[in-house]
């Protein structure tokens, strides 16, 4: 089986400081990988390099494109990369307002992604928007409201609907449940798990919340100071951590 994403030896430096370095992994269709580490460990830098928001200084990020198979997304042209980020990729930001257009209605936010891939029929776009708002548990009567009128949890669900409406194959998530209260988090986790299974999505989730990765991620990568220090099955890394830092991380979680 061809990996959906093949990451080889990625490095990104900020001047002489390391953002992240020597990162390599394969991600297969339907797999969810978590990346954990404290702030400053390089996990967001890595995610942004993978998603094309930052250009890494070295390495290759190969994506299994529908037309031509594995292509290095770093060396492909800007229009090609933008097309990928509108179709096969999705990016869920920690702060919904970074991923939404706050002065456009909820339906418009979802419809805009469809129009970017050449949907033109107003009735179809609106019907799909309603369908997706329903899937993320936003009722139809809110379709013409702007996200500014939504709660934080609703904004986050709207962002997910906007991202998934075009049927992406790979979803990047940066702290998708950060800043939400726990009951809203649980609802969002449940939603994401269902969507991952139904759509056979692959996802890369950056978080510092070990409970979130235990529930969502099949595999886990632990980062510290820009380096990957441990990888493996999520429950294996959490139950039998090998590296000193991972042991500290796991043993520092407060038991509820």
């Amino acid at each position, binding site marked *: 089986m061809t990996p959906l994403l093949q990451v080889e030896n990625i490095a990104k430096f900020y001047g002489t400081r390391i953002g992240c370095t020597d990162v390599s992994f394969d991600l297969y269709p339907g797999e969810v990988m978590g990346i954990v580490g404290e702030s400053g460990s390089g996990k967001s830098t890595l995610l942004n390099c993978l998603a094309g928001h930052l250009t890494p200084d070295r390495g290759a990020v190969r994506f299994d494109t529908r037309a031509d198979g594995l292509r290095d997304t770093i060396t492909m042209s800007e229009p090609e990369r933008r097309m990928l980020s509108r179709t096969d990729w999705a990016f869920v930001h920690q702060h919904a307002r970074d991923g939404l257009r706050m002065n456009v209605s909820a339906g418009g936010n979802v419809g805009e992604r469809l129009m970017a891939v050449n949907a033109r029929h107003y009735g179809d776009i609106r019907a799909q928007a309603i369908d997706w708002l329903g899937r993320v548990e936003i009722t139809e009567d809110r379709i013409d409201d702007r996200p500014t009128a939504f709660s934080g949890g609703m904004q986050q669900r709207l962002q997910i609907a906007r991202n998934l409406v075009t049927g992406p194959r790979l979803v990047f998530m940066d702290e998708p449940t950060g800043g939400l209260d726990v009951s809203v988090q649980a609802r969002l986790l*449940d939603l994401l798990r269902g969507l991952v*299974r139904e759509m056979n999505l692959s996802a890369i989730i950056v978080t510092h919340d070990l409970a979130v990765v235990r529930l969502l991620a*099949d*595999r886990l990568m632990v980062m510290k100071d820009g380096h990957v220090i441990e990888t493996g099955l999520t*429950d*294996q890394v959490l*139950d*039998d951590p090998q590296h000193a830092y991972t*042991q*500290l991380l796991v043993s520092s979680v407060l038991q509820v």
Partner: protein
Amino acid sequence: MISVENVSKSFVLHNQGVAEIPVMQGASLKVGAGECVALVGASGAGKSTLMRMIYGNYLTASGRIMIGDVDVATAAPRDIIRLRRETLGYVSQFLRVVPRVSTLDVVAEPLLATGTKRDAAVHQAEILLTRLNIPERLWQLSPTTFSGGEQQRVNIARGFAFPYPALLLDEPTASLDPTNRATVLSMVGEAKARGTAIIGIFHDHAARDEICDHQFDVTRFTPGLAA
């Protein structure tokens, strides 16, 4: 079906003076189709450790753990994920689920993950929950709020939903009343009859004697404990 060959393991605790604690040395065990083997030994001897090594949530330092043709000790994460989905089931002592997911969905999930249609999966879940005496009015609720015994029965229903060829059972009858205990024992018996290879930990000695064909004393492979 399950073949553990000369495995060993130690824990290295970096944050406690880099203490290295050997916990398992040279253990070998074979379980054939339709066979049930009980892990026995004093508390702390390594029964759960061995079981977790077989399931792959503990790393194995040396030796092989073959489940069918997959070596859990060296397999890549995605191979272990597939093994757990299609071949190797595990009924743990504690239920760990996403909050807010209904009991029916929790039980049906292993079937949905292996491609069973939703209606059929839910129907099978209903049969199992009925058999384990979980009242129907609880089925749409999340099991996180259930009593200990109810949670354990939901866990068992989930573990038996898909007919795995290999199954690990960690104290499946603890905290069950006599009726439910008998139900669980007959479910284990049916799994054996279907050809499932089973490894279990039972503090319930009567249950162990009733359903297990062999006992495997892990104490013999515990460094510092072996006589």
